[in-house]
């Protein structure tokens, strides 16, 4: 009475007729999910007359770079040039990604391979913290940051977001898979603790590292919290903050085209980084389970 088992169901190696039904559901659904993003692309390249077309049309007939030119022109009239905001955002993103990767990997190595009192507690606390919604504690976070004198500094953009509980969690799941014998062998070869992190842990956790790099890049690149709350000096604020304040007042007509161009600038780095690292990310996610 048992059903027939087809060996190529999950992760099939070749195309089969039985897969057609999934394409029939998935392709329209994926396009539906993609529609708003297509809208951003086409709107960003629409010339002024097409932005005002009635009824509204998704496609662009005569694509132009006008909106981008207008956007940068509009931004250059403010006290701080747009290039400064972009520079800030790039520095914030690079430093945040670097620091959060190094911190997570080092901490994951210790929590996975060393024994000390309170180790399990710290890891459990970290896992619990994945569920903390940062926005819920934005008030006390603000109080702590101002008491520490971290307001109005460039590093206020970076410090609050370098510890990423989800990142530590994912890397630790990976370090758990590294056999102790590899680490012992490195010890015998005279490697220091930091040497072990560099020569053993980092090469063997690359998929997890690319995952947290993506996640922390996304959080740093799109972060407006610091610019909103902790920083008054316009020269230290981020591009995301500038775009937010710019787009919230420009949602129709020509402004709409500029807002779409700005959104595209924010979106593309996220997309490109993800595409480059997709395969690695999928490897990490195999170990993402909470046990």
């Amino acid at each position, binding site marked *: 009475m*048992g*059903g027939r*088992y087809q*060996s190529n169901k*999950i992760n099939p*190696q070749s195309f089969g007729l039985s897969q057609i039904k*999934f*394409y029939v*559901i*998935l392709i329209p659904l*994926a*396009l539906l*999910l993609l529609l*708003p993003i297509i809208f*951003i692309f086409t709107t960003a390249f629409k010339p002024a007359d097409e932005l005002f077309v*009635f*009824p*509204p049309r998704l496609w662009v007939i005569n694509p132009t770079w006008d909106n981008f030119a207008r956007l940068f022109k509009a931004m250059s009239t403010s006290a701080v040039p747009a290039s400064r905001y972009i520079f800030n955002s790039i520095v914030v993103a690079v430093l945040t990604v670097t620091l959060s990767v190094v*911190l*997570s990997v*080092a901490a994951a190595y210790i929590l996975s391979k060393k024994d000390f009192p309170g180790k399990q507690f710290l890891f459990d606390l970290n896992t619990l*913290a*994945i*569920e*903390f*919604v*940062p*926005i*819920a*504690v934005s*008030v*006390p976070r603000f*109080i*702590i940051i101002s008491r*520490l004198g971290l307001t109005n500094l460039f590093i206020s953009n970076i410090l609050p977001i370098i*510890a990423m509980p*989800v990142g530590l969690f994912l890397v630790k799941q990976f370090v758990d898979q590294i056999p102790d014998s590899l680490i012992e062998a490195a010890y015998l070869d005279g490697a*220091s*603790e930091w040497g072990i992190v560099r020569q053993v842990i980092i090469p063997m956790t690359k998929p997890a590292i690319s995952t947290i790099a993506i996640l922390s890049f996304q959080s740093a690149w799109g972060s*407006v919290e610091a610019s909103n709350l902790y920083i008054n000096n316009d020269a230290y604020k981020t591009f*995301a903050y500038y*775009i*937010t304040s710019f787009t*919230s007042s420009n*949602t*129709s007509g020509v402004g*709409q085209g500029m807002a779409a161009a*700005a959104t595209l600038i*924010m*979106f593309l780095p*996220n997309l490109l980084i993800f*595409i480059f690292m*997709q395969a690695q990310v*999928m490897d*990490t*996610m*195999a170990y*993402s*389970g*909470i046990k």
Partner: protein
Amino acid sequence: MAGEQMKFKEYLQKRKDAKPPRSGSAVRQADFSLLLLVPYMLAFLTFIVAPVIVAIALSFTDFDSVRTPNWVGLQNYIYLFTQDSTFMQYILPNTLLFAVIVGPVSFILSFFLAWMLAQLTQVPRNILALLIYSPSLVSGVAIQVIWVTLFNGDASGYLNSLLLSWGWIDAPIQWLQDQRYLMMVMIIVTIWGSTGVGFLAMLSGILNIDQELYEAAYIDGLRNRWQEVIYVTLPSMKPQLLFGAVMSMVSTLQAGGIGVALSGSNPTPNYAGDLIVNHIEDYAFNRYEMGFASAVSVVLLIFIFLLTKLVYRFFGNGKKKVAAKQLAYQSDGKPYLMTKGKDQHGRALSK
């Protein structure tokens, strides 16, 4: 007796030997290894754990960000649940409705998308996965730009224009200003952006299930794909399901600002789209009643904590021993209860 004493002495000596020497490389290693943990923990405790503790402490005070806070006991909590009519009338029902729909729907959607994707060949799978994941690459700013235009309230809004031309409506609908529709739009937009990390985790969870489990299950009498999902796929990927559930819960509650972003007003029209996170920000940054805002934060954190407990229980993946066992099949197809990392005779599996 003497023999036992000797044994005890030996034992003490062994314990002494087992301890690291007081000087030399071992101690330096121990110190240095702790140093590697310190930077992360410093940032983690300062910016993630300490705010929670401060929130709990402040929730019992009347802190207004200027004067020294006074201890007021449970007054903030009592006010929240008995006097704060906005909270009881709008915020709490809104948050519950939003969470009850968005959380489960985004979780189930993520699973079914992942499950279907897992049954395609690799190249189309990766392309479709990228397309489906891409909404979560759109940052908070863009959400506003996109959806405000698509749901624009006059006839030039994409949705209104479409519905008008199809003759489904006679006059444009104020999707974002009308209290009847705002919540619906918020739910749609949040579900749209919800296929994120949890979705990826579930996809690779399904891909990593041992093929032999399916084969054995079919020999054992499994009849169709539905049974396959229920008896093999879901139980085999519980850890990823739990991770996905936690992630979809977190992103649901994180999406607090969406109502304000869409309607362009704070508070939203007739509080129709105000969620608990808006209430916190309203009291903290508009009225500077930090003590009260902290109490609302603590209520939210307790809510999240209880929800997590529920999710853990639902997936039966707590710290109980039983949960570590899973159904496995012998080579002849007979099912047996397997303890993770051990074979059917209880011997540890070597990897």
